[in-house]
């Protein structure tokens, strides 16, 4: 640790040095009111979270640590610091991996704190008519419009991001190096053709006597970039005794919006999902992306001040399950194809730290005949993907990834198994960066199970 300063990032952000005008007092009060002071005070500065924080490990700087970030939030809440570009940089330099939450003996709900901080930043910008371009464009133009995502698939992901870059350059706000996009591009699998997608039936019946009717939450990135993994997940679930319904009119989970301070967009997406799954009358809402799952399970907190929706969110949340979580509760899968491969499992942060799901995927992996699971020394330390972090904070993300790959290589595994699309992309990128193409692969756990069934 303590050697790597985030060079690229500091350069990137130094473009914009003048402090924005402070909003009028009443507006500022309303903004600052959003901070949960009790939760901020709950942090007793013990520092137990520091060794688990990937950005602190990279930099050795207090400003890049959970304890430091909480102190900065408190500084802003107490009006000792202003909501300026430096504060924004620091709040967005966090991966949102929530490893600090697992480590914190005081039970500080860091995930909520960082969401609020970003909400305050974004709201502050809106007050000044100065929205954050990069995030706004990615989030509003891509994820809010399921149709657009569907039409363009991966291509859209890439081109939108490139389009962003032009705009960003024009405004001088942020430089996204083409390299970042290019590097991400070659890790993306070929997108399923539209005709293939049309073949998807709305219900995949259980192969055995049906035990449960589950609504499958597709996830927007998941369904575009990893269509086949979604199909595989449905097959695995159907072999485990579930009728799998691809519920209509479902939307993006809203996680990226919530993590980026776009709270109202996030709640609108949540409402669409709650409605869609209510109509489907299913026993469980099942997903295979740790990041989405953590958000879906958090919906009731998003409606804390809206009694009607809070109640509906409560019943929705009670039904949400990660596919790993559900599968270990069902009768064991019968595998027919032994795989004879050494694998290592990279925890999805939002599965492990967000939902406490650690053993279930490992149990499933170990149950596959011929598969040997070898653990990394820090399997639950973030791979650096962090939602759109690898686009907004490319250099730090890659430093974290390089450390991760070193850890992976010690296991001598041929396959890195993950349980979240962002992690999967990032691990694929890691394999390329480490020059291990052909020797190592990355796969979603559901694909692995599907291959062995």
């Amino acid at each position, binding site marked *: 640790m303590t050697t790597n300063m985030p060079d690229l990032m500091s350069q990137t952000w130094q473009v914009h040095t003048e402090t924005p005008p402070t909003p009028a007092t009443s507006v500022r009060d309303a903004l600052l009111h959003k901070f949960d002071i009790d939760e901020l005070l709950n942090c007793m*500065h013990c520092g137990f979270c520091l060794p688990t924080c990937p950005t602190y490990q990279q930099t050795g700087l207090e400003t890049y640590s959970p304890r430091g970030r909480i*102190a900065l939030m408190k500084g802003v809440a107490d009006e000792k610091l202003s909501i300026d570009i430096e504060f924004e940089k620091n709040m967005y330099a966090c991966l949102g991996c929530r490893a600090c939450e697992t480590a914190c003996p005081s039970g500080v709900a860091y995930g909520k704190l960082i969401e609020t901080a970003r909400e305050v930043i974004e709201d502050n910008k809106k007050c000044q008519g100065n929205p954050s371009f990069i995030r706004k464009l990615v989030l509003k133009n891509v994820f809010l419009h399921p149709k657009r995502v569907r039409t363009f698939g991966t291509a859209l992901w890439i081109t939108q991001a490139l389009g962003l870059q032009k705009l960003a350059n024009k405004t001088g706000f942020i430089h996204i190096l083409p390299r970042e996009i290019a590097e991400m591009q070659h890790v993306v699998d070929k997108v399923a053709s539209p005709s293939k997608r049309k073949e998807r039936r709305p219900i995949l019946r259980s192969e055995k006597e049906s035990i449960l009717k589950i609504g499958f939450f597709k996830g927007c990135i998941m369904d575009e970039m990893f269509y086949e993994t979604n199909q595989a997940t449905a097959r695995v679930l159907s072999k485990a005794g579930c009728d799998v319904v691809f519920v209509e009119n479902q939307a993006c989970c809203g996680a990226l919006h919530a993590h980026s301070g776009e709270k109202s967009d996030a709640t609108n997406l949540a409402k669409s999902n709650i409605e869609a799954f209510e109509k489907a009358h299913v026993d469980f809402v099942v997903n295979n992306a740790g990041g989405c799952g953590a958000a879906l399970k958090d919906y009731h907190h998003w409606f804390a001040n809206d009694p009607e929706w809070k109640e509906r969110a409560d019943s929705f949340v009670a039904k949400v399950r990660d596919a790993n979580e559900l599968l270990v509760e069902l009768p064991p899968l019968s595998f027919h194809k032994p795989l004879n491969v050494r694998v290592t499992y990279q925890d999805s942060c939002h599965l492990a730290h967000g939902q406490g799901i650690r053993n279930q995927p490992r149990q499933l992996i170990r149950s596959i005949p011929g598969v040997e699971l070898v653990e990394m020394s820090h399997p639950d330390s973030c791979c650096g993907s962090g939602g759109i972090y690898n686009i907004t904070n490319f250099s730090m993300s890659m430093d974290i990834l390089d450390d991760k790959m070193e850890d992976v290589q010690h296991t001598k595994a041929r396959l890195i198994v993950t349980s979240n699309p962002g992690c999967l992309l990032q691990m694929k990128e890691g394999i390329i960066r480490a020059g291990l193409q052909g020797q190592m692969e990355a796969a979603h756990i559901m694909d692995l199970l599907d291959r062995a069934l």
Partner: protein
Amino acid sequence: MLTEDLRQQLISVVGQKWFLDSPNELHAYSYDATPLLQSIPDAVIIPSSVQEVSMILRMANEHRIPIIARGSGTNLAGGTVPVQGGIILNMNRFNQIYEIDEKNLTATLGPGVITADFHAAVEAIGLFYPPDPGSMRISTIGGNVAQGAGGMRGLKYGVTKDYVMGLEYVLPTGEVLRSGGKNVKDVAGYDLTRLMVGSEGTLGVITEITVKLLPFPATKRTLVVYCHDLYDAARIVEQIIAAKIIPATIEFLDQATMKVVDDFAKLGLPLDMASMLLIEQDGAEEQVMQDIEKIAKIAHHVGAAEVHMAATIEEGAKLLTARRSALSALSRLRPTTILEDATVPRARLAEMVQEIERVAHKYNLQICTFGHAGDGNLHPTCMADERDHEEIERVEQAFEEIFHASIRFGGTITGEHGVGMTKSKYLHLKVGEGGIELMERLKAAFDPNNILNPGKVFAKRDRHRIVVRQS
């Protein structure tokens, strides 16, 4: 404030990257793990060599700018809070282990090495560095040395000060000195190494440390003892020692502490018990089992409600890890957690626990107690709310009474956390006015301009806890 000229000179020493002074950066180095204390520094510098430290100190000395050495900022005495502003000198880039000398059983390392990382490195080759403060996963060895840190294995193995054999340190003049070394016996002049240990950054900046190592014990076993009564636990501790058994660790947790620890670590503790003891013995297999059996017998005899041996070494380790989280876990209860470490000779443990309960009751405060029972080092911890000034005032009074009590029992005001800012006004209770004066004269010999961590150890004696300085 630093003049622009000085600022540029300092930058030229370490480079722009390691000189921080933006508002967020200064704010992030304005606190440590001590509650209620905050003060904004003028700059944060992160040097990487002794030459850089020497140059920075010389410049600061010339301009009378305070220098506050900092490890990971986990001390609980306000030790790294820059009360008079100045430069935070973060030593965490000195994070290399230079040598592990298996022939002499010593290791030489930088002060920025994380304590637990150092444990892992020596244990990997069958060696043992016993000092293990609760914060070891993040504290630095430099911070441990400067603060004279203790830990859970103090009873049998002693504390940090018992392991430091040699040091390299820098004085405000920029002089780089060495003291001690690898010699087990060394009486050449005053023991300056010992003087630096626990000096809390007020005498010099430590840049290299040589410590003593031991062979790693063959095995260990953990015993958990639950008691219906607080005093039974204290009596068990007394009886174990009286039976001439010295366990590696005897930790004590009262009921409220058990509850929060269980909440965090999900251990399934019996929460109807008034207190628990965690007892660990290490050494050769046969001896360990013999001792553990004897201890179990004593515990039953004194009236323990339940005695239970951890099935595996891992289970024992899990319990001790959970114990390390006690302080942070207690902070779940109320917004502000204030802890002290009044320490008494072991034989007075029961009386001290009783006294703490009485004081808590008198001032209508919630005080939980846990700590290193084996060495009489208790951590009475008060849960309060910093926004309630009247309550904080009562906390202040309660701790004052607790300090007086521990002195009365032949104890001390701080066993391992140091004086810093929080206990400076009680220092005279322990060392007397004469002691303070002599310490001040020593300080002046090392640091005549008082630039090294000013306002610590013997600060103004009427200082109260709430010190928030704005730049």
